[in-house]
């Protein structure tokens, strides 16, 4: 790298030169690599390890206009004790993820459990508002007790080449986060190309993101395996270049245990096992959790139980 990384964001021109100087991503090759890793056969003890790991990495999410305090409390109960009263206790999930106005409710509900509270902010999901609004929304969520902020980038600015604007927004939101961890949502479904995914990943990391996250879950495609692969390569390379480790969170479209395990295989064989903890890898999902519990019970008992044996909160 010709420019020292600290100076990269000195101007729009240097930032652009740096991001455009990153190695390209060949779509065919990236798709093929992700597909090949998807054929890994994870059975017996490995599957059991993977399922508990995946449960512990879930950011259990509800992001609906119809969300209420009751709905959020119910979800938090599930987040703290996903397996309910089963004797072989499943781990709690990593975090619950809600809109800012419900952070206080969630924080109260998970207090003392080890489950973190994450909140989307910054005019989620479109990101179409002023920086002032984004910063104050972030501050609001943090004040209400959010441990983690999931912000969206301004895709319009990114796609029009105004990387500096995206960078400045992330820096500002990061400052507003204080001690809270910042996850930066790239919304890769709107960035469209893998080159853009790599550039946006580096842009977010350079601006101080603690995590980079694929999607809002409101745009299709959301977290595809190749996109997660490229982001994992980015955090791996970023740590090699700077020494700072950044987490990855695929979100949206991960519904089955199989999907979750494929993601863990990607982590294991791309970024490496340093990322195989809830501290550095999350799965943004809602319905995934019950499938993980179904498969977990199947491994223990050898039988599938009906859907009514798994709680719907």
């Amino acid at each position, binding site marked *: 790298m010709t420019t020292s990384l600290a100076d990269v964001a000195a101007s729009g021109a240097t930032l652009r030169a740096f991001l455009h100087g990153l190695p*390209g991503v060949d779509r*065919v*090759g990236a798709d093929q690599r992700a597909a090949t890793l998807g054929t890994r056969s*994870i*059975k017996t003890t*490995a599957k059991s*390890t993977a399922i508990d790991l995946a449960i512990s990495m879930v950011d259990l999410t509800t992001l609906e206009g119809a969300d209420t305090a009751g709905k959020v409390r119910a979800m938090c109960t599930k987040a703290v004790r996903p397996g309910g009263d089963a004797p072989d206790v499943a781990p709690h999930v990593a975090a619950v993820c809600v809109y800012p106005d419900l952070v206080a409710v969630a924080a109260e509900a998970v207090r003392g459990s080890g489950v973190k509270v994450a909140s989307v902010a910054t005019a989620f999901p479109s990101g179409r508002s002023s920086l002032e609004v984004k910063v104050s929304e972030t501050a609001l969520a943090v004040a209400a007790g959010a441990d983690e902020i999931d912000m969206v980038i301004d895709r319009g600015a990114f796609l029009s080449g105004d990387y500096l604007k995206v960078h400045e927004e992330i820096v500002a939101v990061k400052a507003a986060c204080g001690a809270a961890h910042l996850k930066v949502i790239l919304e890769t479904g709107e960035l469209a190309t893998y080159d853009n995914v790599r550039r946006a990943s580096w842009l977010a990391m350079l601006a101080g993101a603690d995590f980079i996250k694929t999607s809002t879950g409101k745009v299709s495609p959301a977290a595809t395996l190749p996109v997660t692969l490229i982001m994992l390569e980015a955090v791996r390379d970023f740590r090699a270049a700077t020494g700072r480790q950044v987490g990855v969170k695929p979100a949206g479209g991960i519904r089955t245990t199989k999907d979750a395990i494929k993601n863990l295989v990607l982590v294991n064989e791309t970024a490496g*096992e340093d990322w*195989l903890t809830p501290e550095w890898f999350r799965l943004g999902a809602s319905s995934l959790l019950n499938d993980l519990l179904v498969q977990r019970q199947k491994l223990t008992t050898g039988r599938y139980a009906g859907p009514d044996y798994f709680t719907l909160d």
Partner: protein
Amino acid sequence: MAIFEYAPAPESRDVVDIKPSYGLFINGEFTDGSGPSFKTVDPATEEPLAEIAAATSDDVDRAVQAARKAFGVWSALPGVERAKYLFRIARIIQERARELAVLESIDNGKPIRESRDVDLPLVAAHFFYYAGWADKLEYAGFGTKPLGVAGQVIPWNFPLLMLAWKVAPALACGNTVVLKPAETTPLTALLFAEICRQADLPPGVVNIVTGAGDTGAAVVAHPDVDKVAFTGSTDVGRIIARAVAGTDKRLTLELGGKAANIVFEDAAVDQAVEGIVNGIFFNQGHVCCAGSRLLVQESIKDDLLAALKRRMGTLRVGDPLDKNTDIGAINSAEQLARIRELSEIGEAEGAERWSPACELPERGYWFPPTVFTGVAQSHTIARDEIFGPVLSVLTFRTPAEAVEKANNTPYGLSAGIWTEKGSRILWMADKLRAGVVWANTFNKFDPTSPFGGYKESGYGREGGLHGLEAYLDG
């Protein structure tokens, strides 16, 4: 202990039924061979798998006579009828794909992931493809008259796939065949014989004679063979060319290679690393078109090598039947000895050898994925085909130098180019003397694409429309 250790995930052996002994397949029947039988061995365990009949020149003569007799019937069938048999064979191969894949991995040592996801789909695709040509030969431009009896000798690296490359076009064009599989990997060819019976293929259209070099020599030398097709080493190819010289036999040879995989500084690095790995470690490097010479632009050498080594550290070497195995067993003790010998020469000549930490099983034939850096064109490991998981890394400064080094080899089977610049791909492809040039990928095969070599890599093309030419009397 790693956080996420993959538990063994072995594919079941129960789908295959390996008989204690196998005969020759002549005129639609399994018959005894007259030579001293030999054993085929599981290279992953060194356990003998079955006793295999060896065909003498008398046996080969019986096979050629059967093929000659069947040629009358088979060549007289309308193309559309021959197509039906080929389509039927293709479908049976798909139906029995798991059985064939497991058997291939047991006999050859290649990982089940590859036999399942690469070999078998390509085998079926090859039969489907040439089945489609059988009734359309008049549009191909090579005439419609078959040659007669084809004598075909195939190697051990892709036993069933090489069979498909040879048998499918021959049959589609109306020829009959006498095929000799490699002595270390005869089992899938013999299962294919069973499939021919299952498809009700007329007796004698496909004959399979097992044995070692003598059997192959008898097939090649038989006076009533009209066409010889060989895939294997350049040394044996030379012997065959000599044996066929002066006769009216047609000959195609698909021989060795020492392909350059050329990575430019503007390449998509992560995919290039995958391409390098796939180029040399696919099928344990037992690939004639393997990208065994990595030519990397000097400006990115250190970063690329670091990335390559990191990636090599994730390769899983071991039980070929484990679904998570990336690199299986070396096919034979003989081949393992050759790989070791050439690697030792590499070290002795001053190249730097590196392999990731990997535990190899105690029994069986194993060689770790290996990379040699600091290699120059004049090193033996940059010139001789190693045919194993051993990569030689060289550097270049300019596109012209890359072309010069890539072409500076007695071989010319394949090459790879990694760059994000389309115009450079075209410029390079135009100048590389190699039968196949892959751009931003490597080791990609398709039945519609012709495959074959320049220079000491052989002559003639297999696959695609061009592949018909070798089996038609135009």
